[in-house]
């Protein structure tokens, strides 16, 4: 199965990168493990995804939450995914 590299960043409401935010895949059209990624010092994270649709959710250090929907086609890299954290929680 071919996979596509997905590079992204987590930023706060002011667009500032958030280090050590936690990112996980909460819904997917293919089986995805329940691991959580930690963002780097620039709010950056990277993973490889197979073809399919994915909902990524980021959790900030003060309980902020942000989401992004991603559609992946074979071999097409995603390099500019940005997840913005908002205050409050999802229902």
């Amino acid at each position: 199965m071919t996979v596509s590299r997905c590079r992204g960043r987590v930023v706060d409401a002011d667009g500032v990168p958030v280090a050590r935010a936690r990112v996980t895949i909460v819904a997917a059209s293919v089986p995805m493990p329940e691991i959580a990624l930690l963002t780097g010092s620039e709010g950056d994270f990277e993973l490889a995804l197979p073809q399919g649709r994915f909902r990524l959710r980021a959790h900030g250090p003060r309980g902020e939450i942000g989401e992004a929907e991603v559609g992946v086609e074979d071999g097409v890299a995603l390099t500019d995914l940005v997840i913005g954290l908002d205050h409050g929680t999802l229902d």
Partner: protein
Amino acid sequence: MVDLKSVANPAFSALEAVPAPRSTTPGSLGIATGEQSRSALYLLAKGKSGPLLRRRTGLESVLGQDDRVRILDTELPPWRMICALEMRGPSGAGAIGTGWLLGPRTLLTAGHCVHSGRFFGGWVREIAVSPGRNGATFPFDTVRSTRFASLDAWVGREDPDFDIGCVHLDQPIGERLGWFAIGALPPNELEGCLVNVSGYPIDRGEGAEQYHHRNRVLRVSERRLFYDVDTYGGQSGAPVWIHESSNAPPLVVGIHAYGTSGTPAAFHIEANSAPRIIPEVLDRIRAWVKEDGGWPGA
């Protein structure tokens, strides 16, 4: 029969900053504390049950109403045998998961917590293991490991049925903390069982607090176990355990790894899932423990 081989990670230089007869292994509650966990007394599910009805919404791994409960007495068994994991990949990228002791010097987790093309580009470099972590409180020392193993069916083709990983420890922390027994049980013994899952989700407590939920096994397939238990990212590698009777010790029968996306649509159920401990897997696990010196008296 499945022919499974163990695959060990290559040694890295110094790190930078960063259906068959039932078969079981021995368990231990570690050094007695003189105190019984009140959480265990009130929360642990035991035996079998008829269908438990719950309000369901959405397709995520918290299946409807969130019924997870935070464990506060994590310094007591069985909770102290469950560890918060922080993995560090070759690039320095970090990740959070859960693991649990199955021997004095051996910890089990999900395969993707030790090797993943998707998340680490291969083997992780190092894992920090924090037994019974309770938020900012670490009731026991955090230990680090750079020695891991998984199954060829996971490392070679990332088959979710074999998403199982081993962390070899230098320190015999299980002698004090105890370790879970594990069992390869036939499907008829698992059907209808109440299972317990406890680990370190990131949506509550940022992956630093232990949460437990219990509910019924919904389906048993040849190599997987599907259950109506709330979980979330960060709980990969958590033990899925049963108590066969009210006085029986914990017995791990699966290793939590997948949310609802891992459940085949043809099953028509909303469930999270774990690779089952099947006899072939148990043979590999025994070999991993033996590499670490084995179980006392075994």
